[in-house]
């Protein structure tokens, strides 16, 4: 390796390859995802952007409690569009968690009010 920069660049390329989608890895064949999503002359640029976004999202997932490997695996399952949706918004997007008991509580409250009203009405 000639220079420090060349070495760093190579390391970056190797790191980015973790997210090479499976189809692209089959040399010579044009992958299906390229076909169904981007078909413009900027396809190459979109590819690089996608790699960088994936790196960002993986880092954010790590900061939210995932191991590095888990973050990479999970990002690898996302489409480019899905990665795009996440980038920069992981903290604010909905994260389903509640246990559903709350809707039952809401129903009970309404039923209770109805009973009270009925009772009061009867008393008159």
């Amino acid at each position: 390796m000639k220079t420090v920069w060349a070495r760093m660049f190579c390391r970056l390329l190797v790191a980015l390859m973790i997210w090479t989608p499976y189809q692209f890895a089959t040399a010579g064949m044009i992958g299906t995802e390229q076909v169904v999503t981007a078909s413009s002359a900027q396809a190459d640029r979109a590819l690089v952007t996608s790699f960088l976004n994936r790196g960002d999202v993986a880092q954010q997932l790590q900061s939210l409690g995932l191991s590095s490997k888990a973050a990479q695996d999970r990002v690898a399952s996302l489409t480019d569009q899905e990665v795009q949706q996440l980038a920069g918004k992981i903290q604010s997007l909905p994260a389903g968690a509640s246990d559903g008991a709350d809707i039952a509580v809401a129903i009970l409250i309404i039923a209770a009010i109805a009973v009270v009203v009925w009772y009061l009405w009867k008393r008159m």
Partner: protein
Amino acid sequence: MVSLETHVIKNARAIASVFLLSCAALIQGCASWTPQTKALAESRPEGVPGAHELTEVPFFAQSDYQCGPASLAMVMVAAGVKTTPDELVPEVYLPERKGSLQVEMLAAPRRHGLVTYELAPNYAALIREIAAGTPVILLQNLGIKEGWHYAVAIGYDWDNGMLQLRSGGNERQELPFAMNEMAWRRSGYWAMVAMPPDRIPATAEEARWLSAIAALERTGQAAPARTAYRAFLERWPSNVNAAIGLANSHYALGDLRAAEQVLRDAAQRAPDSDIVLNNLAQVLADQGRAAEALPIIDRAAAVGGSHADAVGQTRSEILKKLNR
């Protein structure tokens, strides 16, 4: 001194009337709170029975914050994948967010060979999928704290306006359509299904379903992707992109002959597709038939489309093989 009790009882009539009037106003206004229920009530989706319940969908009670893994486990087992909520926690749960993101709910089943699909955001789609035998994961907001919650819709009774869900610790929760809508509309009516690769959602739209299969393929699951592309082509036989996908799956599984056959058929339907021609040339070259591949790659090069670089590379490789 008049006690509060006396005060209330003396004015009970007045208080009750105000309350009832407000309720009436609310109920009037409710229709605009639940526009889709109104539309649904006016017409039952075409071709679906009055009621249908998927009783065989298993129930997994969720533990704290883990309605995501629990909901996924239910629909994935229903789709034929053996799994449990605990196994899915590391695939969708985010510790610091204490919950699961929607795109990760869509992504996780792919690693198990299923195709996931986000439904069109309306009640009719939900009903039609259940009628076709597919349980649906909904994202609701229950309005308390953060409130986001995934539940699995497993049945409906249109005649009585009720939806049946597996939700939280509740194996069978029955809700009026309107009540569910109030919670569901806050997610933009978000809903998803997870399909075994040989089945297509009842409400699948051609282009979006193709993207869904490509998303599965991207995770390297060539065998289920192949099954899914085949099923796709049975339904939409003239879709060239699906043929490309099927050929790519054959190729990834090492079946070059099958890939060649699919691509030849596709080239007849789409003689100017540089992708079809490129991939066909590649498949021929890989079978040691570079001489046959050359005129085909030349045709691809002549198209001069957005994949010119890839085509050029393929062509150089073929020329190398021919020692030219």
